[in-house]
């Protein structure tokens, strides 16, 4: 973003806080960008000629006589096919040593899709992870986060989902990503030979936190280009949205806004919804699917960040360590994909819903049996069988290292049913039992 020669340079800043600078200037547009020295800032408030700028890089060391130049435009991204395969920072500048992208310059954070122009999301995304495909099927155009504790392998699962989903483009929006995680993504994508369909916008822990605020809009602006103009299936990965919300809180706090619950700005719901609602199934076939990560603190989902997220997204996925098999699984109880009913049985097989429900019910029986065991009660024969079923089900289907097709996962579950239960105990509609119950050999 070059400054232009004729632009007026201001050199007197009136007020500096941790995240903002205010100065007197005229003819400035709302949301406009400015450079304060070499730091990028954005107009967040104008009262008469007093302009307040949010400084993305933080205000440490900014002198009151710093040179301020306004760029006359809101943040933009140059979009074009050459975005593919590239790595950018929060400002959309390349960080991979490659050339600047040529293309149409569009403002980020653009308008919403007219709701009547949307289509009902109804194409399943197959991930091979049966814990997702079977119990929490994902759909193109959906928005869904992982609610995860910081120590869980959510980045690994997300990368896996991204590579297996048959997306035309995968756009990574990394916020407060550790350098190690950033390199992890880079390597995984590289090794999979998928780099040419991946675009990354990354803010690492080394970068100033306020810069993160630009990441989702950058990623989604690129996504809209490919989904709307090229009719592509685009998958956007946003990690970690909790760090994004923290950055929002920093800025609103510096602007003396009255915080609401958990020190979060009162506009948190709208701020998050604006991002997540970019997920869309377009009538032309293009789509944007958002898979995000919201890290929890101490597993508390009533905290304002996961709480507002839950009210916006279409379900959530939980990971859990299953100590019986020493593996991480997709928790079948707390996870929910609210759009799964749009695809199960239609994009998979007609017995899907029944198999899914029966397996979860039996898995719940096993959980009860386990509690009994822990409380020192005797187990019935059914309890024993449920426990054995649960172990295999967990290992062969729920574990995140599983990679099987949709039909295979259903057949496998039938096999487990037959191994441990009678068809009455499983309680599936007769027509399906007749068709799929494994024959004794």
């Amino acid at each position, binding site marked *: 973003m070059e400054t232009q020669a004729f632009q007026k340079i201001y050199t007197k800043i009136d007020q500096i806080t941790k995240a903002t600078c205010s100065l007197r200037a005229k003819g400035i*547009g*709302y949301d406009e960008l400015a450079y304060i020295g070499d730091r990028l800032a954005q107009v967040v408030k104008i009262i008469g000629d007093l302009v307040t700028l949010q400084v993305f890089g933080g205000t440490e060391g900014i002198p009151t006589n710093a040179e301020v130049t306004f760029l006359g435009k809101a943040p933009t991204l140059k979009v074009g096919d050459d975005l593919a395969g590239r790595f950018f920072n929060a400002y959309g500048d390349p960080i991979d040593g490659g050339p600047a992208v040529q293309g149409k310059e569009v403002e980020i954070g653009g308008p*919403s899709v007219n709701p009547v122009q949307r289509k009902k999301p109804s194409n399943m995304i197959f991930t091979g992870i049966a814990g997702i495909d079977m119990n929490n099927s994902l759909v193109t155009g959906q928005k869904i986060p992982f609610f995860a504790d910081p120590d869980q392998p959510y980045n690994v699962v997300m990368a896996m989902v991204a590579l297996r989903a048959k997306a035309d483009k995968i756009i990574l929006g990394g916020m407060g990503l550790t350098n190690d995680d950033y390199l992890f993504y880079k390597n995984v994508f590289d090794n999979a030979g998928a780099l040419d369909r991946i675009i990354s916008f990354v803010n690492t822990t080394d970068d100033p936190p306020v810069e993160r605020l630009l990441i989702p809009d950058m990623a989604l602006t690129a996504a809209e280009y490919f989904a709307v103009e090229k009719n592509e299936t685009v998958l956007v990965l946003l990690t970690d949205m909790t760090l994004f919300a923290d950055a929002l809180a920093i800025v609103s706090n510096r602007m003396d806004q009255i915080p609401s619950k958990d020190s979060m700005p009162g506009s948190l719901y709208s701020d998050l919804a604006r991002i997540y609602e970019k997920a869309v199934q377009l009538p032309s076939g293009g789509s944007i699917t958002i898979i995000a990560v919201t890290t929890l603190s101490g597993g508390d989902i009533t905290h304002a960040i996961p709480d507002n997220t839950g009210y916006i997204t279409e379900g959530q996925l939980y990971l859990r360590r299953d100590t019986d098999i020493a593996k991480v699984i997709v928790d079948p109880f707390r996870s929910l994909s609210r759009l799964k009913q749009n695809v199960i049985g239609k994009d998979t097989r007609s017995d899907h819903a029944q198999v899914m429900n029966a397996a979860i019910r039996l898995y719940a029986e096993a959980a009860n049996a386990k509690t009994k065991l822990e409380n020192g009660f005797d187990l019935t024969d059914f309890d024993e069988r449920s426990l054995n079923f649960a172990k295999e089900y967990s290992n062969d289907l729920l574990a995140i290292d599983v990679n099987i097709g949709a039909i295979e996962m259903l057949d496998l579950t039938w096999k487990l049913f037959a191994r441990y239960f009678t068809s009455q105990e499983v309680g599936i509609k007769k027509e399906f039992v007749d068709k799929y119950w494994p024959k004794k050999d």
Partner: protein
Amino acid sequence: MTKGLVAGIISNLVIVEVDGPVSQNEICYIKIGDTKLMAEIIKIMGSKAYVQVFESTRNLRIGASVEFTGHMLEATLGPGILSKNFDGLQNDLDKMKDVFLKRGEYTNPLEDDKLWHFKPLAKVGELVEAGSWLGEVTENWIPHKIMVPFKFEGKYTIKEISAEGQYTIHDPIAKVVDNNGKAQNITMVQKWPVKVAIRAYKAKPRPFRMMETGIRCIDSLNPIVEGGTGFTPGPFGTGKTVLQHALSKHAEADMIIVAACGERANEVVEIFTEFPELEDPRTGRKLMERTTIIANTSNMPVAAREASVYTAMTIAEYYRSMGLKILMLADSTSRWAQALREMSNRMEELPGQDAYPMDLPAIISNFYSRAGFVYLPNGATGSITFIGAVSPAGGNLKEPVTESTKKVARCFYALSQQRADSKRYPAVDPIDSYSKYLEYDEFIEYINENVSKQWIDQIHYVRNLLIRGKEASEQINILGDDGVPIEYHIRYWKSEVFDYVILQQDAFDKIDSSTPIGRQKFMMEIIIRIIKRDYDFDSFEDVSKYFRSVINILKQMNYSEFKSDEFIKFEAELEEILTKRKVAEPA
């Protein structure tokens, strides 16, 4: 008209220096290039008007010119509203052809050129007033009354009235004169400020007619009335939207107004796609024909979200004045309250609890009071039943929106996390929830005459049963299965029968999703008979086994067509296991 210049911008709050008189809630347009952004005055300080802009203010500059309109935010009322998809400002979304919403694009809510077949209802010489029916056109299937505009004050005499025929909404269909002999033309379209209640009715008594919703946990436990108010608070994912959609599909109303207020766009898309296909069993017409949607989803401008519930309510009041039964649903009123909070914060007002504006309770109560059952001047009746979803932060009901709503809404349908987690849908908590209408004498009388003399007593009876069942289950949990008398297990399982068969209802099943009142009565009688019996069991295991089989058959009945062969077969099967069990009939 007054003009002004932009003097300050904080997100969608703009401060305008004005050169003349302006009024609170007046609408103005801010010029930005060739585009005009609509805004509403929300505070006035000397020559400064604080306006909330219904659009993004990106690139707006100090000094931009502003034109005031002299009127508040108005709804356009006339034939053509039914089946439309509007945004919060009543723009017709289907008239916008771009994939993306364009800033400053406002579309006509009605059709200027469409011809309507008008039939006069009033005669020359008749004395009329605001809301009097002059004639009617058929809109889809509703006899849409053409009324004397609500803004007309006092009495008028009809001088001319058009003959039956085809007219556009702008053609004069009547000419009236006031006391001073001043004549005015009336067309089929009128405007009304959305934040002001339409009061063109004679009386607003306490509502008393039951509104059938087809949802058993409402009708059979906490019934709502035509013109009643209710709300459904619940944590995310507990089924507020599914319940609202079920109500919009099955409730007995002439017209449904759905205000999708700050929630997901995909949920509105579901209505757009389903309703034109789904049939209303009562009329045989498509559901969309009786539905109007106000979609201001969470990603659409927040000030327009605030306006959306008022726009929806004004449309409801307009149709109520035609003598219709309206059901209005809003999902979610918490998002509306949050829109108020965002603006209040930007104006740096002294905040109340959780940073909501101090006057939030008053705003909510004012809004709910616009619902109700009315007698129109001509003796006809009309009603607006309003049910709002509430999304309490952290699922905690001790928060300002829930508490303020609880003070005004008469039915409380609390969605419980625990019930949702155990997939007991709809997750309405049967013990915490209530309907105040059960205390209304008028309502009791209505039920006695129109539903059954036992209905109210039955409701009290099963409520008590549920409480006792809950107590029993707590005791069992504390003392263990064999630490309590068998009687406790029986008591618990009786309440489970009611829970599984009446309360739980599959919103996605073709038959179970809606139960007409006749069928509810039928099932209720069976269940009460089962519950009132005495049972002998040898062990607690037998209790659960027996009642599980009873529940299983009753559920099969729920899934079968009422009184079909299949249904009757299950009924017989039920009788069989009921009689097989050695029971002592109650004295």
